[in-house]
């Protein structure tokens, strides 16, 4: 599995589509973390099912005052770490420019 991350609207999806067919691609995994009790199991399941997974980097900026948003962001960050740990390659897309930050692309 290849894990693609980067800021919001930085071109992750566009890049990910160059790596695999649409049915092997999961976009915006950060949206799945919310309300999941077992993030490790979720990461395991997603990594087995998809060839390429994208998730936005969401941990910058101010910690949200709203506790619900705080929990969501925390979960999204943890899930990204778990996915990256299971990935053969981790790519960060910045202003549309992909950089492999760990591992190697097949």
């Amino acid at each position: 599995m290849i894990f693609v991350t980067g800021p919001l609207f930085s071109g992750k999806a566009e890049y990910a589509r160059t790596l695999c067919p649409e049915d092997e691609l999961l976009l915006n995994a950060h949206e799945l973390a919310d309300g999941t009790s077992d993030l490790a199991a979720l990461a395991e399941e997603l990594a087995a099912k998809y060839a390429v997974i994208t998730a936005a980097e969401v941990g910058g900026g101010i910690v949200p005052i709203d506790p619900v948003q705080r929990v969501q962001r925390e979960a999204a960050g943890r899930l990204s770490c778990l996915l990256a740990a299971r990935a053969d390659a981790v790519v960060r897309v910045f202003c549309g420019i992909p950089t492999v930050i760990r591992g190697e692309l097949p």
Partner: protein
Amino acid sequence: MFTLIVGGAASGKSRYAEDLLLRCAGGPLVYIATMEPFDGECRERIARHRAMRAGKGFRTVERYRDLANADVPAGCTALLEDVGNLTANELYGPGGAGEEAVVLGVEALFKKCHTLVVVSNDTNSGGAEYEGDTDRYLRALGNINRALAERADNVAELVCGVAVYHKGREPH
């Protein structure tokens, strides 16, 4: 030569951009300021940037929107600061012409320049739960940054004052 510099708040973008510009200067030096002085905080920030530029020989052109018609001398070395403000002005300000005007404006400006350094903002790593105007702004700035990065010769991310080049290299 067109260099795009992107970074978070207070990451050292301005200082790095100014030093870079002075090192590769050819033609008259122009500083294009995009921040409209709405309040005391804006005026303080503008004063701090003016003090930083003092004695470096920049002519300051204030241009809050419609960059395409900015009055800059042909063959100049220009610093545009910054795209975050320009985007907000084009999206929300009076007479603003939207997202496209920012990219078209930078393209038109670059045609008049020998060297162009553009400072932009990384606002898009702080959560994904935005709606309405904020979502619209983040989306627009994300699109603009990508469009500018595609057109730029060099793209650097500023991290604590350190320039990390994602495309090209530091110009000399």
